[in-house]
């Protein structure tokens, strides 16, 4: 575990000595604020909850998470530090986990920094804080899934741009999979079972369920398994690179 911690610390350190962390945090907080208050009609709805705030998160993550994860392995491959890292006494799993946890904690920090909006809504009214907490949890789980996807796809290539685009593409597909318009499009061509399956893959559906305050084990499991699955795929990709 010390190796995982060491990789995680190093990774976090790299976020904060380069502008990456600050640029991310500022853009995330500004966009979250603007989108919630203007696009989300925070005041006009007249309800004391953070529904409009959380509704924006998938779209924020879509742009910002790939920006964090694209460098994760691509940069190490290109800069030659991958050789250094993989000849240190740690397993691919430990390296992957350390990097993943660093990014996940970092998004967690970004979420913590949005607490003023929670204070605001508590000042203005009497929201159900349990639901809000669930919203934060759901958002963080969803971010974790985005990061795992990004971590895997970053291992695929030495180009950060390619890693960014692939990650954003996969994420947008997973967000859109459950949208009614998309499902309607396939209505005639695919059997009902397949369409239902696709709908269940949708990240949005599971996130919205959690953000409504319904903590269903299946929704949490969806995110947990997605993360594990993508991380396994990433480790396998890295291992494949050693043999090819």
């Amino acid at each position, binding site marked *: 575990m*010390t*190796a995982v*911690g*060491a*990789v995680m*610390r*190093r990774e976090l*350190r*790299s976020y904060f*000595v*380069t502008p990456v962390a600050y640029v991310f945090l500022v853009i995330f907080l500004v966009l979250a604020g603007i989108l919630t208050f203007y696009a989300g009609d925070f005041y006009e709805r007249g309800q004391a909850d953070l529904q409009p705030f959380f509704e924006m998160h998938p779209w924020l993550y879509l742009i910002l998470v790939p920006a964090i994860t694209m460098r994760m392995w691509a940069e190490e491959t290109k*800069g*030659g*530090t*991958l*050789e*250094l890292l*993989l*000849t*240190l*006494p*740690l*397993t691919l799993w430990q390296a992957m986990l350390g990097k993943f946890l660093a990014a996940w904690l970092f998004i967690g920090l970004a979420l913590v920094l949005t607490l003023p909006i929670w204070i605001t809504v508590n000042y203005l009214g009497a929201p159900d804080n349990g639901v809000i907490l669930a919203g934060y949890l759901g958002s963080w789980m969803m971010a974790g899934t985005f990061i795992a996807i990004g971590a895997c796809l970053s291992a695929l290539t030495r180009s950060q741009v390619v890693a960014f685009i692939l990650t954003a593409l996969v994420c947008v597909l997973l967000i859109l999979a459950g949208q009614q318009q998309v499902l309607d499009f396939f209505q005639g061509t695919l059997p009902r079972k397949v369409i239902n399956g696709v709908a269940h893959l949708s990240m949005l559906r599971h996130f919205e369920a959690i953000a409504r305050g319904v903590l269903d084990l299946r929704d949490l499991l969806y995110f947990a398994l997605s993360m594990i699955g993508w991380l396994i795929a990433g480790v396998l990709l890295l291992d494949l690179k*050693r*043999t090819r």
Partner: protein
Amino acid sequence: MIETERLTRCYGSLTAVDALSIRVEPGQVLGLLGPNGAGKSTAMRMVAGFLAPTSGTARVCGYDVIREPLKAKRALGYLPEGAPSYGELTVREFLLFIVRVRGLKSDVAFRRFDDVVQRLQLEEVLGLCIDTLSKGLRRRVGLAQAILHDPPVLMLDEPTDGLDPNQKHAVRQLIDMMARDRTILISTHLLEEVHALCNRVVIIARGKLQADATPAELEQRSRYHGAVSFSAPGSGMSQEMLGRLPQVAAIEVDPLDGRITVFPKAGERILDAVETLLREQGLEVSEIQLERGRLDEVFRQITTSDAITAATPQESRA
């Protein structure tokens, strides 16, 4: 100890390392020599566990790099080619990262850290970003990283590449100092380095082992081994006389500076005979030298005769 056992690595149809078997014992400093693209780095990467062998295996201190990679990596200090490091970190942060990943106990770690920093003269740059350092300093940081855990086996891929003569000297001193009870494998294409550092040389070309000897043995294979060379103005006469000496096989004159090289017949020593003759002739010799043999010539001979069999015209011409 490092052992490779028919270590092989293919990239598609290209065989970069071809059934390489080497064994390096503690106390040995083995120089892995070869032209660019000979497979030196690929072989080292497999021993370090970065690349998986296509077939064959390697052991570090008896630990198989395929079956017990973590134990093998713990016993090994490795400087990858180009000494990569995390440029955005400071030297201190980077070395502490290595300490943590290697899980060194804190009391040992502090002692080692101070010792290594002092040995490589990194005290003044500890707080600086690695990206801002000169090439030589970055190489030293890479070396520090490799020896931080006091490994019994050290593998350095071109440790002095790109350093200035003073830095080269410092790095060689360091390696020399560490050499006593350790197993050290360095790759290089600098032949002077072999003289300065290694007590054993392995030459590979096209992934295959071509020679395994001490530097002195390799020099003996040179045409120049035991030859006597001197510069003397107006020595046209004496050339003929020298040619008549029974021990002399051939005489060559450098067309540029007129320096004369006298080659002995196999097993003969000619320095005394040549000197005597020159004195008898009353020739003013500005300087006379007994050649030990030329490693670069042997190197070329070994690595290009292979190239000839593999039919690459531009290399055999050179």
